[in-house]
C-alpha cells in the first residue's frame, strides 16, 4: 500500500481556512441573489481573518522551522508572519471591495479573492521549486481573472490580457530556470539545493538568474515591471490594492527565502544582482511616477519604487535585512491598500478614473479621506509619524550594514525624487480649489460606505501605529528572519 505522508494540518490551516472560505463563497451561488454578496463577503473576510489568526498560532508554535510533507513546504515563523500580513491585508481588501458597483458574480469575486489569498498563504511556505511554481501559478491565475473581472470595462480586459500574457512569459522563464537548477542539482527542495554538489555551475547560475527574473516579475521590480502600471490602472481598484500589497509581500518573502535557503553559496552574485535590480526599480519607479496624472498609475509606479526599497533589504542578505523587509511590508501594505481604498472612494463618487485633477479640493470636501490619503502619501515618502520612516530606516540600515552604501545613496536620492509626486498628490488634495475639478461629481453627496471607511481607518491605524509600536514588530520580524539560514 502506498504510505501517504503525514500532514501537518496546523501548518496548512491558514491555507485551508481560506480555501474553505472560498468554497463557502462559491457555494453562495446557490443562495438567493440578495444574499450572495453578503454571504460571500462575510465568508471571505472571516476566511482572511481566520487565516491571520491561525497564522499567528503557527507563529507561536514554530520556534524552529520544520520541513513538512517530504520537504514540499516548511512551517516556520517567516511564513507565519507573512501569512499574518497577507491575511490582514486580504481582510481589509474585502472591506474595501464591498462597495464596488457590480451587478453580479459577487460570489465568484470573493471566492477568487479568498483563493488567491490561499495561494499566497501557501506560496510563502513553499520549500521546493515545484510548490514554488505551483503556488505562484495558483494565485496568479486567480489574479488574472480578478484583474479582468469587470469584463464590461475594456480597460479591465486589456489589463487582464496583458497580465496573463506577460505573466505567462514570466512564469515560463521561472519554470525554465527551475528546470535548469533541477538539472544542475537533481534536487527540487531548497535546502537540498543548497546542500547539493552541483554538477554544473553553468546550469545552476543560469537557472538562478531565471528564477530571480521570474520572481522579480511578481515583485514588479524594474526592468520586469512594465506590466505593473497598465495592470494596476486597468484592474478593479480593490483588486489593485490586493495585488500591490499582497502579491508583492508574498513574492518578496519567497524571494528572500529562495535566495537565502537555496543559494547561499551564490550569495556574492545574487546580492549584487538584487541590489542592481533595486537601484533600477528605485530610479525607474520614481521617475516614471513623476509624469503620471492618473492616481492609480502613480501608485503603481510608487509600488515599483517600493519594490526597490524592499529589494535593498533582500540584497543585504542578512538577518537585519530580513527584519527590515518584514517590518517594511507592514506599513507598506497598509499604506498601499489604504491609498487604493481612498482612490476607490473617489472613483465611486465620481464614476470615473481618479486623476490628480479630480482630487482638487477633495481634502477639504472629505476630510476623513483627505487626511488618510495625506497620511499614506507622507508614509510612502518616509515622513515621520508613519511606519514608512522606520521601514526606510531599517532598509537603509540593512543595506549600509551589508556594505551597500551606494545603494543607500540611491535610496535617498530616489526618496527625494519621490517627494515630487507624493507631495503633488497632497498639493492637489488641499491646495487646489474644487472649482478646478473638471469632472462634476456624479451625485450630490457620495454613497455612504462604512466598510470602506473601516478599511481606510484600519490602514491609517496600522500606518501610524507601526511608527509608535516598533519594537514588538521588530521582535517578531527578528524571530521570523532567524528562521532562515543566514
Amino acid at each position, binding site marked *: 500500500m502506498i504510505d501517504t505522508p503525514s500532514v501537518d494540518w496546523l501548518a496548512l490551516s491558514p491555507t485551508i481556512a481560506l480555501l474553505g472560505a472560498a468554497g463557502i463563497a462559491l457555494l453562495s451561488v446557490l443562495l438567493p441573489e440578495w444574499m450572495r454578496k453578503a454571504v460571500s463577503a462575510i465568508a471571505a473576510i472571516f476566511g482572511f481573518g481566520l487565516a491571520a489568526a491561525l497564522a499567528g498560532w503557527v507563529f507561536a508554535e514554530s520556534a524552529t522551522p520544520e520541513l513538512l510533507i517530504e520537504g514540499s513546504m516548511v512551517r516556520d515563523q517567516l511564513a507565519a508572519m507573512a501569512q499574518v500580513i497577507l491575511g490582514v491585508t486580504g481582510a481589509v481588501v474585502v472591506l474595501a471591495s464591498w462597495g464596488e458597483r457590480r451587478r453580479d458574480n459577487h460570489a465568484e469575486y470573493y471566492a477568487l479573492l479568498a483563493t488567491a489569498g490561499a495561494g499566497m498563504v501557501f506560496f510563502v511556505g513553499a520549500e521546493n521549486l515545484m510548490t514554488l511554481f505551483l503556488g505562484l501559478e495558483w494565485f496568479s491565475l486567480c489574479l*488574472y481573472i480578478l484583474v479582468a473581472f469587470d469584463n464590461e470595462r475594456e480597460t479591465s480586459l486589456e489589463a487582464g490580457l496583458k497580465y496573463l500574457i506577460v505573466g505567462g512569459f514570466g512564469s515560463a522563464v521561472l*519554470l525554465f530556470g527551475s*528546470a535548469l537548477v*533541477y538539472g544542475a542539482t*537533481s534536487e*527540487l527542495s531548497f535546502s537540498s539545493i543548497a546542500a547539493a554538489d552541483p554538477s554544473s555551475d553553468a546550469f545552476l547560475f543560469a537557472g538562478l538568474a531565471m528564477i530571480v527574473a521570474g520572481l522579480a516579475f511578481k515583485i514588479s521590480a524594474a526592468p520586469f515591471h512594465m506590466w505593473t502600471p497598465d*495592470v494596476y490602472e486597468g484592474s478593479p481598484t480593490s483588486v489593485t490594492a490586493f495585488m500591490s500589497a499582497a502579491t508583492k509581500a508574498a513574492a518578496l518573502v519567497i524571494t528572500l527565502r529562495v535566495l537565502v535557503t537555496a543559494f547561499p553559496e551564490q550569495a556574492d552574485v545574487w546580492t549584487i544582482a538584487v541590489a542592481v535590480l533595486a537601484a533600477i526599480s528605485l530610479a525607474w519607479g520614481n521617475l516614471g511616477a513623476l509624469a503620471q496624472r492618473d492616481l492609480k498609475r502613480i501608485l503603481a509606479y510608487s509600488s515599483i519604487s517600493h519594490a526597490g526599497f524592499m529589494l535593498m533589504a533582500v540584497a543585504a542578505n542578512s538577518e537585519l535585512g530580513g527584519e527590515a523587509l518584514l517590518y517594511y511590508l507592514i506599513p507598506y501594505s497598509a499604506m498601499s491598500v489604504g491609498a487604493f481604498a481612498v482612490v476607490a472612494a473617489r472613483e465611486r463618487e465620481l464614476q470615473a478614473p481618479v486623476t490628480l485633477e479630480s482630487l482638487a479640493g477633495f481634502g477639504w470636501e472629505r476630510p476623513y479621506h483627505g487626511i488618510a490619503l495625506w497620511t499614506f502619501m507622507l508614509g510612502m515618502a518616509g515622513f515621520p509619524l508613519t511606519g514608512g520612516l522606520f521601514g526606510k530606516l531599517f532598509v537603509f540600515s540593512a543595506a549600509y550594514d551589508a556594505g551597500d552604501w551606494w545603494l543607500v545613496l540611491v535610496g535617498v536620492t530616489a526618496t527625494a525624487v519621490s517627494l515630487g509626486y507624493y507631495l503633488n498628490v497632497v498639493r492637489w488634495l488641499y491646495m487646489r480649489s474644487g472649482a478646478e475639478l473638471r469632472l462634476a461629481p456624479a451625485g450630490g453627496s457620495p454613497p455612504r460606505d462604512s466598510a470602506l471607511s473601516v478599511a481606510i481607518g484600519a490602514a491609517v491605524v496600522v500606518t501610524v501605529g507601526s511608527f509608535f509600536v516598533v519594537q514588538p514588530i521588530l521582535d517578531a520580524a527578528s524571530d521570523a528572519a532567524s528562521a532562515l539560514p543566514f
Partner: protein
Amino acid sequence: MDGPDVGWYLIVAAILFGIGALGVMMRRSPLIVLLSLELMLNAANLTLIAFARQQGDLDGQIFALAVMAVAAAEVAIGLGLIVAMARRRMLLDVDQASALRG
C-alpha cells in the same frame, strides 16, 4: 542510454523555448501568443523530463505533469479572456490593446 545524449534533447528544448518566446514577442494575435506561451512551457517540460532521465529521478516528471495542468489552466483563462474581449467587440490584436499606457 541509447540514442542521443540528454544534451541534444536540451538543445531541442532550448530552440523550442526560443521559438515560443519569439512568438510571444512577435505575433499580434492573442490566440497565437497564447499558443506560443504553450510552446515555452512545453520546452520547459522537455527540459525537466530530460533532466529527470539524466539523473534517474522522478521529481522532474512529476513537475512536468503539474506544469501540464497549469498550462491547461492558463489556456482556459486566456481563452475566456479572449472570448470576453470578442464579446466587447474589442479587436483581437495585442497592439490595439494599448489604451493603458504611459
